[in-house]
Every structure is written in C-alpha cells, then in structure tokens.
C-alpha cells in the first residue's frame, strides 16, 4: 500500500512537472489593434527618474481594522533611476503606486521589477504585485486582476502567480515556482479576456500564466510591495522587504482617460 502511495505521488509530480513545463515554454503573440500612437503613450511611460505625481498616487490600502491599526506606509524612494520600495518593520506595511488615469478598450502594459526574497521569515509575508482594477459604475462592478510574487510566512516557497477577484471571491490561476525575481510583469487585455505574462531577465519569450475574463470596464493600473496577505490579522515583521521597479510602459492602449484632478 505504501508503495502504491509513493507511486501515485511520483506520477502526480511528473504530470505536474510536464504541465508546468508546457506553460513555461508557451510562446505569446498578442497584438493590440487601433492603439493610440506611441507619441501619445510615451507621456505615460515612466522610467522612474523622479516620482511623477502627475501619473501616480501612493498606494496604501488595508483590508481590515486590524491591519489599519498597525499600518505603516512603506518608504518609496528613487535611487539611480529606479523606484525602490522598502516596507517598515513592526506592523502591516505597504507601498506602491496607482495610476491617476484609466485605460480603456484593449491595452498592453508592463513593468520591470526586482525582488530578493528573505529566507526564514515566518512573522510576515512577502508580496509583490502588479495589478489591474476594472472599475464599474456601481458597487459590485469591480474586478481586480493581479500578477505577482508571493512568499507566505508559513511557507518556504516563493512563487509567481496571478488571479482575479470580484464580489468577495478570488479565482486562482496557474502559478510557477520562482526564486528571487528579476524580470518583467505584463498584462494584455483584448476583448473580454485579460492575460497575465512574465519574462525573466535574459529571456526572449514571454510566458503566459493565465487568461482571465475581463469586464471591459475602464481600468486603473498599479503595483505595490507589502508584507502581508489579505487575511493576515497579526504581524510582527522584524525585517523589511525591498523591491525595485523600473520602466513602466504602456505598449499599447486604445484609450487613456485622465482623472479630472
């Protein structure tokens, strides 16, 4: 019986490995038709030579009273043309940027990021995320699509994964194991689908993680680093985590809608 269990486990791992391998080598070719010209998109690209308050505002959302009570905004600094985010210790900490504009129609956006996971830190999580929020006009018409890196406190594993959430429910997607990450995260929305992709430094081809349904609502875009997952209610966080972001780029977009103010 024990031999059968070992055999089944071995078969499961082989199938999983084949599945993951297939995902990892998938080539991606997604074209956005009728995009705004590059001359117009270029204004919104950001190489983080300075903090552009005309494009971004600082992220800082928390999910519960417990998190809010112990919330400490992470430090955002520009160093050598790169945005560096460093969480604070002793509480729930988060930092990031959210666009002051919305993307309409089909679009293709990406950002480079760099994160070294800390080892053996069980008193906090390590979460880097690139996100799209499709916001409808009524309550409940909001959908968030996320792509990012995660190392949960209790788990020793660091992964890259994506999911989407709406009406209080999260829909998971494929994930890959990853170590420290140097690469680019990307979203492409075409029609009623939104794909999450990534590419590690030095790789030529994009890897597609998931394709999720899209509401087609106008979407804000942003990215953040935080030391907690949504459900965490207590934290000690004796260490800071650091991530770096660079070269945010709108490769294509059919519409960009600026905020009034």
């Amino acid at each position, binding site marked *: 019986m024990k031999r059968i269990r070992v055999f089944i486990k071995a078969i499961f791992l082989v199938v*999983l490995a084949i599945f993951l391998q297939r995902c990892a080598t998938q080539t991606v070719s997604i074209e956005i038709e009728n995009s705004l010209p590059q001359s117009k998109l270029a204004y919104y690209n950001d190489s983080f030579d300075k903090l552009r*308050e*005309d494009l971004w*505002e*600082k*992220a*800082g*959302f*928390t*999910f*519960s*009273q417990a998190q*809010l009570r112990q*919330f*400490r*905004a992470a430090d955002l600094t520009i160093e050598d043309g790169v945005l560096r985010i460093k969480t604070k210790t002793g509480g729930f900490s988060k930092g*990031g940027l*959210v666009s002051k504009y919305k993307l309409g129609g089909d679009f293709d956006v990406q950002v480079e990021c760099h994160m070294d996971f800390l080892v053996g830190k069980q008193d906090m999580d390590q*979460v880097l*995320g690139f*996100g799209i*929020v499709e916001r409808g006009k*009524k*309550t*409940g018409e*909001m*959908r*968030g699509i*996320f*792509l*990012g890196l*995660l190392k*949960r406190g209790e*788990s020793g*594993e660091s*992964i890259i*994964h*994506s*999911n*989407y*959430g*709406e*009406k*209080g429910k*999260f829909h*998971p*997607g494929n*994930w890959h194991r990853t170590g420290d990450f140097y690469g680019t995260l990307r979203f492409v929305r075409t029609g009623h689908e939104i794909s999450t992709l990534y590419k590690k430094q030095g790789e030529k081809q994009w890897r597609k993680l998931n394709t999720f349904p899209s509401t087609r609502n106008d979407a*804000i875009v*942003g*990215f*953040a680093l*935080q030391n907690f*997952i*949504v*459900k965490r209610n207590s934290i000690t966080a004796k260490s800071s985590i650091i991530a770096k972001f660079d070269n945010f780029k709108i490769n294509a977009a059919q519409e960009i809608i*600026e*905020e*009034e*103010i």
Partner: protein
Amino acid sequence: MMHLKILRISLGGLLAISFSIGADIPNVFASNDCDKALSIFWKGKYTYQKARKYRFYEVAINLCPGFIRPYELIGNLYRKDGETEKAIDYFTKAAELGTTNYKLYYLLASLQFQRGDLDEASTNLKKSLSIRDDYQKSLELKRKIDQASDKDGPKIILFEPTTRRGIKTVFKYKSETVTTRGMATDKSGVSWVRINQMDAPVDERGNFLKDIPIQLGSNAILIEAADTIGNRSSVSVHVEREEISLPEISRIDSAAQPSHFYDKSYAVVIGINDYEKWPALEFAVNDARVVEKKLQLTGFEQITIIFDKEATQRRILTELFHELPQQVGRNDRVLFYFAGHGQTEELPNGGKRGYIIPVDADTSNFSSSAISMDQIRSLSARIPAKHILYVMDSCYSGLGLNRSYGVSPQLSGYLRKVASMRVVQIVTAGGKGEQVQERGGHGLFTNYFLRALDGDADINNDRVVTGTELGAYLRPNVSDASHNAQTPLFGRLEGEGEFLFFMEKK
C-alpha cells in the same frame, strides 16, 4: 495539497477592490498619523458612496493635515456638487500646501474665473501652465481669461512719420509717398495692421513698414491694428505734400551743369576688401577710390569715404540715418556707392530681402548685422534730398523695386520735369546668386559705371546721364561682358524723377 493552499492566497487588494472595504470609518486614531491617513484616503477613493467619500477624506485630513491629496479630491467633490466656495477653499488649501497638481490649479482658476476673479484665476492658471505648459484645458481657459481681461487694442508706436505725444504735427513732404514705419504690440498677439485701409506686413515683433501714396496738400494717415481677440486701436498723423517749385528755365543752358539743378551734391562712397567674417574681396576699395575721383570731377562737392574696417553696420547707418539727414537740403542730390558683398534672404512668405554686408556682419546671422533694403528704403525717407541714387557693386535681389519708367523722355522739358520730382533710384551689380566679376583691377560693374559717367550712357547726347540711362546702359553691357554671369538690376524705390549726372567738362 500545498498547490491548492497557495492558490487560495490572494494578491487581491494590492491596489484595493471594493469587497475588501470591510472597515467602517474609524474615529479612534490619534492625529498626525499620516500612514493611517493614507489607508483611510484609499477607502474614500474606492467607495462608491459620495457621502462616505467626503467622510473618509475628512478623516484622512484630520489624521494628517499636511496630506494634500484629500483636499484636492474633496474640493473636486464640492465642485461637482456645485458648492463653488467650498471647492475653492479646499483647492486653495491644497495650493497653499504646495501641490504640484496642474489640474488642481486649472480647476481652481476655472472656478475663480466663473466667480469673476480674473486676477486670481490668471495667477493660478499661470501656476498650472508652469507645471505643464501643454495642458489643453489650461490653454483654453487662458484664452478665455485673456479675452475677458483684454479690452484694449494693440499699442501702436509710430517711428515714421515721428509723432510727439499730445501735439498735432504736420510733416511736409515733396515726394508722392510717405514711408510709414512703426510697431504694434499686444499681449494676445497682433492680428493685422492697416494703413489708410491697406494691409501692412507685420513681422513677429510687430514691426510694420509701408509706403503710403499721398496727394498734394493735406493727407491723413490712419494706422489701425487689431489683436487676435479682435480689439482694435488706431493712431493718425497728418502730412502735407508740397508742390515743388521747378528750377527756372532760364537757368538751364545748352551745357547743363549741376548747379542748374542742385544746390549741393553729396556722396557716400564705401569699399570693403577685408571683411571680418566674410571672404575678402580684391578690388572693392580700389573701385571705391576711382569712383570717388570720378564723382569729384562730375560735380560732387561733399564726399564721405568709408573703407574696410571703418565700414561697420553702425557707421554706415549713422551716415545714412544721422549725418546725411542733418546736412542735406531739399534741392540736393545724394549718391551712395557701395562696393562689397551682398546677400539675399529667402523669406517665409516666399519673398526675398536684399542686404548689403558691412565689414562686421556675421555670416550665419547676417540679417541682424547687415543692412537690409527695408532699412535703406526707410532711411531714404529721412534724407530730404531731391534725388538719391544707390549704386551697389554687389549682387543681391529682393530690392522691392518699382518698375515704372517715370516721365517719358519724349516730353518737352523732360530734364526740367524729372529734375523737379523726387526720386530714389538704385542699381546693383547683379541679382541673387550671381558673382561680382573683377577684371583689370576693377569690378566689371564699376568699370562700366565709370564709362557710363564718361558719357557712354548718354543716349540722347545731352551731356546728362539720367538714372534710367545709367540702368539702361549698365544692364546689357555688364551682362554681355560677364557672359551673363551678372546682370545688373535697376529700379526706383520711390518717386518718378531722375537722378542726374553731368559730363565733366572736356
């Protein structure tokens, strides 16, 4: 099973999504907690209920009074709710805290504009445009504010004929045209200038120049200008054209002499070989010396010679602008001879402008350091002489010449008539792109000019060479001798008279 466990861990809410807003509006935090203010602010940002937005933003402000963004967003909520004063208050606080949000300054300015505070609106709009100078909404509002605040037409300054503030001045002219030159300026830009209902060309600085025909007796010259908004202004000046008393016929005998036609004869002779920046010439100074001698022999009493390094733009302009107008009388003649470089500028409107090049002119930016035909025309109007002739041994076009023949030589008393009428004539060695030819130690053009004064140009053998005869002689002869490499240009800048040369007594 670890796989599934990990998948349940969500990244959702990194940016915030609505179902995560579980917390109600807190009121238990100490003030000066800007970290928590940031989180509260985001709850306001993502709630769909306007009342909650107001409350979240207010709490964020209470927690962190220096946090600018909630002021901006509350202000905008009030603006959209039509509560202008409250909106202005919040926007003003954001501005006082030093926001760099160009949209806020625009919105603040637009509210102040609606309220009629044009000065404050203008100040905030300037801030908006100083942060982002291509923000279309600010640019459009600026136009509206400019329109609302600008009730005046362009300011007109008249250089010629000169006016004195508060004094009605009448100028007396003998010529049939008066050069009207000045500047029109307006902060919204000058749309057009009209002089006696004729369009006058205006450059980017507002300079305008136009020759206006005048009748015998009193003439009103009305200069009107409009700005881009449509506001108009005008100035007027009165000029009087006098009838010229003709020389007495009894004084003209068979051997015409300068004294029969002119009180005095002036010449300014300029030759430049050694340019500071332009290529050196070989015979220009020599030509000028020979011309000076020839002029002495043909009745010119007052000759000013300016050679090489003395022939700066300032010196030449001073001679034409200041010295000659002071010395010259109304029954005098003035000859201006220039041997040196010439240049032609292509104008944006497709036209051309000719220049003579002083010794200190730049090669690349010659338009500001050379002397243009517009300046020469303008300066000619200042010289009261009856007859003025410019002899330019240099090649350029864009002279703006009047091609009329003037009075017909077939008319009886021709000399008497043309001698009585003002004229400014010009002859140049060649046109645009042509090279001055030099032979036998002289420029080809000057060589033929000297021959013309020796009598070769005296077509009707009356021992008088008129300006027209000079042009008629030089054009074909120089062109032939140079194998069409240079073809002199001749014409009138003003008037219908004739400059007269008299053969030297043999």
